[in-house]
C-alpha cells in the first residue's frame, strides 16, 4: 500500500516536471520552424511543424531594433547589479557586524520592495519623476530596478555573513591588520561568492523586467522584455520564439554560473 503510494507520488512528480518544462521546450523548438511566403511576407506557425530552419534567427540578427533592445537591457542589467552589489553588500555587512539600533526597521525597508506589487512601485516612481521633472531614460529604469535588486544581494550576503566563523576576522585584527585590510583580505574573499550569486540574480531580475521599465522609460528607449511584449500584442510568431529563446539562453547560463559558484564554495 505504502509502496504503491510512493510510486504514485513519483509518477505525479514526473508529470509536474513535464508540465513545467514542456512549454519552454516547445517554445524553443518552434523558434526553428520553417516559415511560408504569403503575400510577399514570410510568416510562420508556432503550433504546426513545417521543417527545420534558422530563418527567424537570421532575421533577428539583421534587425537593428533587437540589437538596440538587447544592448539597453544588458546595460541596465549590468549597472543595476553593480549598484545592488555595492549597496546590498555594505548594508548587509553593517547589519550583521555592527550593533545598530533600528535594525528591524531597516530589515523591513529592504524586504518591502519585494512584497509590494511591482506595478504600484512602477507607477509611484513614475509620479516621482513627473513631479520633480526628471527626464525619463535609461537612468530612471536603472533606479527603478535597483530598489528591488538591492534586496536580493542584501539577503544572500547577509546569510553568508551570519554563517561564517567570525574568529577569522578577529585573528586578522589581533595580528595587526587594519579594519580595512581585514575587510578586503579576509571578509571580502569569503563573502565574494555570495555577492556574485546575488548580483547574478539581480541581473536576471533586471534583464527580465517588463513592468518597471515600461513605466519609467523615456521616449524611444525600449528594453528586450518590452520589445517581446509589444510583438506578442501584435500576434504570435516564430520570430518571438527566437527572441524569447535568446533571453532564455542568457538567463539560463547565468543561473548555471550562479549554481556552480555556490556549489563550489
Amino acid at each position, binding site marked *: 500500500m*505504502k509502496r504503491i*503510494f510512493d510510486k504514485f*507520488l513519483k509518477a*505525479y*512528480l514526473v508529470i*509536474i516536471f513535464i*508540465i*513545467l518544462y514542456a*512549454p*519552454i521546450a*516547445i*517554445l524553443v523548438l*518552434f523558434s526553428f520552424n520553417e516559415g511560408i511566403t504569403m503575400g510577399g511576407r514570410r510568416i510562420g506557425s*508556432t*503550433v*504546426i511543424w513545417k521543417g527545420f530552419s534558422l530563418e527567424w534567427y537570421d532575421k533577428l540578427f539583421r534587425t537593428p531594433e533587437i540589437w538596440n533592445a538587447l544592448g539597453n537591457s544588458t546595460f541596465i542589467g549590468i549597472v543595476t547589479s553593480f549598484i545592488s552589489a555595492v*549597496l*546590498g553588500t*555594505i*548594508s548587509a555587512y*553593517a547589519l550583521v557586524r*555592527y*550593533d*545598530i539600533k533600528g535594525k528591524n526597521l*531597516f530589515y523591513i*525597508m*529592504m524586504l518591502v520592495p*519585494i*512584497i*509590494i*506589487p511591482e*506595478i*504600484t*512601485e512602477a*507607477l*509611484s*516612481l513614475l*509620479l*516621482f519623476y513627473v513631479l520633480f521633472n526628471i527626464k525619463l531614460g535609461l537612468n530612471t529604469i536603472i533606479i527603478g530596478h535597483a*530598489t528591488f535588486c*538591492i534586496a536580493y544581494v542584501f*539577503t544572500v550576503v547577509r546569510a553568508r555573513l551570519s554563517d561564517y566563523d567570525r574568529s577569522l576576522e578577529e585573528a586578522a585584527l589581533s595580528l595587526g591588520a587594519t579594519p580595512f585590510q581585514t575587510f578586503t583580505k579576509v571578509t571580502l574573499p569569503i563573502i565574494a561568492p555570495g555577492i556574485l550569486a546575488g548580483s547574478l540574480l539581480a541581473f*536576471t531580475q533586471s534583464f*527580465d523586467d*517588463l*513592468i518597471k521599465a*515600461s*513605466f519609467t522609460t523615456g521616449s524611444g528607449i525600449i528594453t528586450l*522584455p518590452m520589445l*517581446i*511584449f509589444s510583438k*506578442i500584442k501584435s500576434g*504570435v510568431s516564430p520570430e518571438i520564439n527566437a527572441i*524569447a529563446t535568446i533571453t*532564455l539562453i542568457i*538567463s*539560463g547560463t547565468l*543561473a548555471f554560473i*550562479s*549554481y556552480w559558484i555556490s556549489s563550489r564554495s
Partner: protein
Amino acid sequence: MLSDSNAKLSLKRLKGYFLIVPAFIFELLFFIIPLIIVFVYSFSKIDAFGRITFEFTIQNYFNILTPEFTKTILRTLAVASISTIFCLILGYPIGYYIGFKEKKYQNLLIMLIIIPFWLSFVARTYSIISIFSTNGIFNQILTFLGFVGDKPQWLYAWYSVVFGMVYNYLPMMVLPIYASAEKLNPQYLEAAQSLGASPINVFFKVTLPLTMPGIFAGSILVFIPAVGEFLVPELLGGIEWYMIGNHLWIIFLTMGNYPLGSALSIVLIILVLFITILYIKYFAKEVELGL
C-alpha cells in the same frame, strides 16, 4: 575608563550607520517617498483637460466604488485565491516528496523547481499561448486521443489565467513546503502509526500540522504576486479577465489619469499589506521567505 569604552562603542555604532546610510537613502528616495506621493495624488483633482491640481478630494475613492472597479477588485481577489489554492493542492505533494521522501536526488529536484524562477517571466507566459491556442499542442493531443467535434477554446477564460498563475508561481509554493517537510522527523510518523493511526489519520493529525508553516509561507508567496499580477491576465485572459494591475496600466500609461490610478493602487497596497500583516501576526514565527 568606562567613558572611554563607551566612546569606542558609539564610534563603532557610528561606523555601522555610515555603512547603511547609502542603501537607506536610496530606498527612502526612490521607494518610500514615491509611495507617499501616490498617497498624495490619490486625493488630488483632475479637470477635463487632464490638468492635476492638489485640492483635497475623496472623489477618486468614490470612483473606485463604481461597479466596474468593484467587480475588478473582486475578480482579482477571486483569481488570486483560486490560483493559490491550486498551487497548494498541486504543490504540497511535490514539496512533501522532495523534502521528506527523496534523499538521493533532493538537490537536483529542488534545482529543477528553482530554475524556472530564473528564466524570463515574459517568455514563460508567452509559451503558454501557443500550447492552448485553438490549433495548439493541447488540442492536437486531444484530437490524437480521439476527441472529435469542435476544438475547444482554452485561452481568454478564468482557467487560462489561473493556469498561467499556477504555472509561474508553483515554485514559490513548493519551496517553503519543501523546507518544512525536510525538518519532519520520521519517528513522529512511525510513533503515530505504531499506536494504531491509519495513514490518513497520520497525515491529518501529524504531517499536516507540522508542515503548516510551509503551507502559510507558500500561500502568501503565491497570493501576493498574484494579486498584483499584470502580464498573465494581459496575455492569457484578455479584457474580460482584466485584474487591478491591468487597469492600473491603462489608467496610467494610456489615460494619464494619475489621481484615479493612485487611488486604485492605494487600495491594492492596502490589500497586500493587510494580508501580509495578518500572516506575520498569526502564522509566521519568523519571516521565512524560503528563497
